[in-house]
C-alpha cells in the first residue's frame, strides 16, 4: 500500500510539471502587455517617466527575460511558497485570496453537509423501494437537478424569492447596513440568511448526483449474496437493511464524502458571480477579466494540484474500501 502511494506521488511530479508549463505558456499567450495595463500614465506626466515606470514593472516581474527563465523564476518562487504579487491588488497573492477562499469554504461546507444529510436517507430508501413512486420521483428530481443550468436556477430563485417575495437578500454575504463588531451569533445568522439562496442552488445540484450514487451503492449491496443469506436466515427486513446493508453501503458513500473535501477549496464560479458572493470562484473570473496574470496563474496551479490530490485520494479510496480490488 505504502509503495503504491509513493509510486503514485512520484508519478505526480511530471504531471504537475507539465501542467505548470502549459498554464504558464497559456498565460504568456495572452495578448497585451501587463505593464501597459497595470501602470497607467496620467496626462501631464512626462511620457519618458511613464515608460521608465513601465520598464520598472517589467524588470520587477522579469518580463523581458527569455520565457524559460521567467518560468523557472516563477516555479522557484512557487516551491518556496511565494505565490507572487497580484498585479491588480498590488499585494501578495496569498494575502488577497485568503479571505476569499474562506468565504467559499463557508458556502461549500454548508452545501456538502446538507446535500449529504438529505441525499443519504433518500438514496437508501430509494434503493430499498426500487421502482416505487418514491424512487421514481427522486430519480426524476435528480435528473432535473443535473440538467438545470445553475445560472438559470439561480436567477429564478432571485426573481421569485428575492425580488417578488422579498424573503431573502439579493446578493452579497452580509447586510450592507449592519455593522458586526465581531463574528458573533448575529453575524453568522446574517451570513446564513445570505447563504440560503446560493446554497440552495448548489445543494440541489449536488443532491442529484449524490442521490443516484448512494442509491446505486445501496442496490449493489442489497443484491449481494450475503444479504440473501441474511434474509433466508429469517432476520427481519429492518435488521437486514440497517445492520447489514446500510453499513456496507455507507463505505462507498463515505469515500464520496472524502472525495468532496478537496472541492471545498474551490469556488462555484457561476453561483458566486450571480449572487456576488465574495468567494474564490468569483475573484478568479474577475482576475481573468482584469488580466491579473500572477493571481490567475497562482490559483490555477493551486487548483491543479488540488485536483491531482483529489484523484489520488479517489484511487486510494477505492483500494482501501474494496479489499477485492487489487492495485498495480
Amino acid at each position: 500500500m505504502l509503495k503504491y502511494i509513493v509510486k503514485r506521488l512520484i508519478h505526480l511530479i511530471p504531471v504537475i510539471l507539465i501542467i505548470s508549463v502549459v498554464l504558464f505558456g497559456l498565460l504568456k499567450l495572452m495578448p497585451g502587455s501587463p505593464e501597459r495595463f497595470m501602470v497607467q500614465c496620467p496626462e501631464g506626466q512626462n511620457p519618458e517617466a511613464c515608460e521608465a515606470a513601465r520598464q520598472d514593472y517589467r524588470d520587477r516581474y522579469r518580463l523581458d527575460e527569455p520565457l524559460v527563465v521567467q518560468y523557472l523564476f516563477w516555479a522557484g518562487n512557487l516551491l518556496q511558497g511565494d505565490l507572487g504579487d497580484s498585479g491588480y491588488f498590488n499585494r501578495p497573492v496569498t494575502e488577497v485570496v485568503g479571505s476569499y477562499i474562506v468565504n467559499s469554504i463557508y458556502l461549500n461546507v454548508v452545501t456538502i453537509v446538507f446535500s449529504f444529510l438529505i441525499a443519504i436517507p433518500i438514496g437508501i430508501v430509494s434503493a430499498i423501494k426500487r421502482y416505487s413512486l418514491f424512487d421514481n420521483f427522486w430519480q426524476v428530481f435528480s435528473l432535473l437537478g443535473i440538467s438545470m443550468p445553475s445560472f438559470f436556477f439561480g436567477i429564478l430563485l432571485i426573481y421569485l424569492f428575492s425580488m417578488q417575495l422579498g424573503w431573502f437578500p439579493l446578493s452579497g454575504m452580509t447586510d450592507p447596513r449592519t455593522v458586526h463588531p465581531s463574528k458573533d451569533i448575529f453575524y453568522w445568522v446574517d451570513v446564513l440568511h445570505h447563504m440560503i439562496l446560493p446554497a440552495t442552488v448548489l445543494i440541489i445540484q449536488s443532491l442529484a448526483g449524490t442521490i443516484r450514487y448512494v442509491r446505486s451503492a445501496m442496490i449493489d449491496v442489497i443484491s449481494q449474496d450475503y444479504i440473501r443469506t441474511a434474509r433466508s436466515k429469517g432476520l427481519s427486513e429492518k435488521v437486514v437493511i440497517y445492520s447489514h446493508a446500510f453499513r456496507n453501503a455507507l463505505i462507498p458513500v463515505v469515500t464520496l464524502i472524502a472525495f468532496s473535501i478537496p472541492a471545498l477549496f474551490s469556488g462555484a464560479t457561476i453561483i458566486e458571480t450571480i449572487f456576488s458572493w465574495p468567494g474564490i470562484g468569483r475573484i478568479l473570473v474577475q482576475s481573468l477579466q482584469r488580466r491579473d496574470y500572477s493571481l490567475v496563474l497562482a490559483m490555477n496551479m493551486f487548483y491543479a494540484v488540488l485536483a491531482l490530490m483529489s484523484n489520488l485520494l479517489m484511487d486510494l479510496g477505492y483500494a482501501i474500501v474494496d479489499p477485492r480490488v487489487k492495485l498495480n
Partner: protein
Amino acid sequence: MSKEDRNFKNKDLDEKELEKNSKDKRDELSVEEQRELTLQRQQELAAQERADVVISPAKLVWQNFKSRKITVIGMGLFAFVLFFVFIVPFFQSSPEVNSDLRYLAPSWEFWMGNDAVGRDVFARVTIGGRISLYVGAMATLISTIIGIIIGSISGFYSGIVDNILQRFTEVVRSFPFLPLIITLSAALGTDVSEDMRIFIVMLILGLIGWTGLARLLRGQILSIREQEYILAARAVGIKDFNIITKHIIPNVVSIIIVSATLSFASNILVESGLSFLGFGVQEPGASWGLLLRQGTSNSSVIQNQPWLWFFPGLFILLTVLSVNFIGDGLRDAIDPKNNAR
C-alpha cells in the same frame, strides 16, 4: 475543479456507476467476479447456440429502452426541441434591430417579446438553439472520437504505451478547465471571426472532455480481453475478427453511446455557462447562454423584463433534461443487472 460549473462531476459519478456496472475498477478483477461473469456469458453463449440465431445485444437494449416511460418522454421532448430549433425558423425572418420595439413584453406578434435593441427574442432563441446544439454535438463528437482512440490503444497495448497514455490522461483530467477556456478565449481575442470563435470553443470542450470515456473504455477492453470466454473462443478457433466484432465491440459500443449522450448534455450546459460568463459565444452571434447573460445584465432587467432570461433558460433546461432522460434510459437498458433479472 469547481463543482457545479464543470458539470463533469455528475458525469463522473455516472461514469463511475457505469464502471461499476461493467465490473471494472482496476486492471485486474477479483476471482469471484470473473467467475460470475464467465458463468453469465457462458449461459448466453449456450442460449445463442440453441437458438441458432445471433440475438444482438442491441435488440435487447432497444426493447428495454422503449419500455421505460421516462425515456419516451425524453425522446419526445428532444424531438420538440429539434423541431423548434430547426424547423420553425423556416417560417421566421432573422431578428432585426429596431429601436422602436425595445423591451417589449411578449405579445401575439412577438411571442417571446423583444430584447434591449428591439430584436425578436423568439428568433434569437431559435438561432441560439442551433448554435448551442451545434457546439454541444460537435464537442461531443470530438471528445468521443479522441476517447475511443486513446481508450482502445491503452486497453489493447499494456506496458509503456499504456503508462504514458495514462499519465497524459491524468494531466488533461486535472486541468483547471474554466481558467483554461477563458484564457484561450481571451488569448484569441478579436483576431478571429465569430465562426472561428465558436469553432475554438467547441474544439476546447472536445479536447478536455474525453478523459472519462478513455478510462472507461480502457478498463472495459482490458477486462474483456482477459475473459475466459474470449480465451475459450480463441481456443475453439473462432477468428479474432469475429471475437472483436461479436463480443468486444457490442459491449463497448453501448458504453460509448451512453457516454456520448451524457457528454452531449454536459457540453450544452458547459457552453451555456461559458457564454453566460462572457467567454463563449459573443455578439453578434447568439447562444442560449449569451441570451441569458444579456437578460440578466442588471437587477432592473431581471425584474422588469423576465422574458429575456426565462425563455433561453427554459430551453436549456428542456434540452439537457431530455438528453439526460434518454441517456439514463440507455444506461439502464444496457445494465446487465436489468437483463439478468
